């Protein structure tokens, strides 16, 4: 099979990166001035309590011992225990992650749809006013801070058109009567729509620019000329012959953008008070809850490494010119 070698090498590299990430994560959080416990924001904690907590967390042992303990518990899938509510970190993060995922998916779909449409139109009409307008719009949206787009969306869309601007579900729902499944789903979608739209707008510019340049290149290929000579319709040429080949960079870019999508999600969740992973991270910072922060950071790093790995494999699978 082509590239079994490549897959193995990429997997090895990804695993190595995971290991580096774990180690760096350990070092980063041990580099706290004082210890994590002294930095804990907790007003009713006594000295004795903090000492006991340090002991419980093993912070009084040597670095190396701490490191091996950390690796050992990670191997068992134990991310630690939250300082503030004494539940496991995973318990703390599970629900936020589940809330964030649908938003990321919807946002990605929105950005890809707008991005591809804008890019294709731009490339098709290259050099015209439509193209210039499109490219300027894409560049500008690309240059806007995501949280600011969010504020603008709240200010100019949500408040004017009666969309919810905070939370993930209507708190009054289910008080008077048991809501039907449809009402619940509709309510979720209403809360999810604007954060996802914001993220989609923030992402689309990059996709549009890449689809445009990739399309321009594809439309200059000989087989497109051949297709024209055969008398195919423009629509077929652009969508079948052009876009299909121009999609290659986009597919990998989407996987590669995952880190950036996450970054956008974090600030957007702050704007919309959307109880996802971003808000969980921000709350953990506010309370200096290091185990949760560390766990969240590790999970996010894993996710990005995973998507980079997927991007590598996709690129290899889709483009036969890539050699192992």
């Amino acid at each position: 099979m082509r590239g079994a070698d490549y897959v193995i090498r990429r997997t090895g590299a990804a695993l190595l990166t995971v290991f580096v990430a774990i180690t760096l994560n350990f070092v980063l959080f041990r580099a706290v001035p004082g210890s994590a416990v002294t930095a804990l924001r907790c007003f009713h904690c006594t000295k004795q309590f903090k000492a006991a907590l340090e002991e419980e967390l093993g912070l009084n042992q040597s670095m190396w011992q701490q490191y091996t303990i950390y690796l050992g518990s990670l191997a068992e899938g134990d991310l630690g225990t939250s300082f503030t509510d004494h539940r496991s970190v995973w318990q703390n993060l599970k629900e936020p992650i589940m809330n964030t995922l649908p938003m990321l998916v919807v946002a990605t779909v929105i950005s890809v749809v707008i991005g591809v449409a804008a890019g294709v139109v731009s490339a098709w009409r290259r050099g015209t006013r439509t193209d210039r307008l499109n490219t300027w719009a894409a560049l500008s949206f690309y240059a806007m801070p995501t949280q600011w787009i969010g504020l603008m969306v709240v200010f100019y869309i949500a408040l004017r058109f009666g969309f919810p601007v905070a939370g993930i579900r209507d708190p009054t729902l289910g008080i008077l009567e048991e809501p039907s499944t449809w009402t619940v789903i509709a309510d979720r979608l209403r809360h999810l729509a604007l954060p996802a739209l914001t993220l989609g707008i923030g992402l689309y510019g990059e996709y549009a620019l890449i689809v445009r340049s990739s399309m321009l290149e594809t439309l200059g290929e000989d087989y497109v000329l051949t297709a024209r000579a055969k008398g195919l319709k423009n629509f077929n040429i652009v969508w079948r012959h052009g876009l299909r080949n121009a999609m290659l960079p986009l597919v990998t870019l989407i996987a590669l953008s995952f880190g950036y999508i996450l970054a956008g999600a974090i600030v957007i969740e702050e704007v919309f008070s959307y109880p996802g992973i971003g808000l969980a991270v921000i709350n953990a910072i506010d309370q200096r809850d290091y185990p949760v922060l560390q766990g969240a950071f590790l999970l996010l790093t894993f996710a990005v490494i995973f998507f980079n790995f997927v991007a590598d494999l996709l690129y290899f699978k889709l483009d036969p010119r890539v050699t192992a």
Partner: protein
Amino acid sequence: MTIEAVPPAGAGGGLPGTDLAPVAASTPRGVLKQLVLGDRQAAFGALVLVLFVALALAAPLISPYSPRVKAGPVYAPPSSEHFLGLDDGGIDMLTLLIWGARVSLLVGFAASLMAMLIGGTVGILSGYLGGRTDTVLMRITDYFLVIPDVPLMIVAAAIWGQSLLNIVIIIAVIYWTSTARLIRSQVKSVREQVYVKRARALGAGNVRLIVKHVLPQVTPLLVANTVLTVATAIFAETYIAFLGLGDPSQISWGKLIQNSLTGGAIFSDAWWAIVPPGVCVTLVILACTMVGQSMEDSLNPRLKVGHLSVHRFRLRRPPAKAEVG
């Protein structure tokens, strides 16, 4: 409608990265000349940048009010005295924007200079020395490429404290990677040039070769890349400030955006507190992107060819690594 013959890659449009440089300028003067004459967008970008830098430098002279003193009622709308109204503390918005330019641009330029130093050093060492040094340095670079940048910034800012210097260091430490990769590939090709080999045969040492022959060749590209990094750094600063991890005593555009959320500008219907800081950030980032990309294009026309187009519009993402052979 018809599909005309497609002009050579990306002609027309007149936007950064879409124009093929009329003449590939390779001297600094050529680059400058092209910036001003050949590329209107780059000239526009340069103008915007100069304007904002001038505003930032002259802040104490030109700002109409003090950035710390209440000048009127909270969220007073724009008037002839307060061109952009007042914020949630009754402070003149225009004054805040001008002072905010100082911190935002300072962070942007300082962080990207530092990133240039790190990335340039790593790139030159990696490309010039090759072998095991190259492998190790590129492994480290690869790692920094996959680490989720914003979560790392958040964690680092939260752990190491919220001073301006810390933020500059954090941003620089995250965004040096693309510079390193770009410079590395450039150095690799310079190293193999005949004149470098000749100089080596004549007995020039590594240090002399790097300083006298390699560095001058890669400096323009390094500068172009730095201008692009300024955009990324300013963007990153708005994130950090927005999450309340910036230096609380400093006014920056990111902080102003945060203020408009925490101060409730949205529910006070105070558009003048929400819109302007974002517009400033967007303008500066656009300007940096245009200038940087135009410089890069004129220095290295090859960059825009073929599959490399994937990497053209990176602002927040490091370039994809794919070996096409």
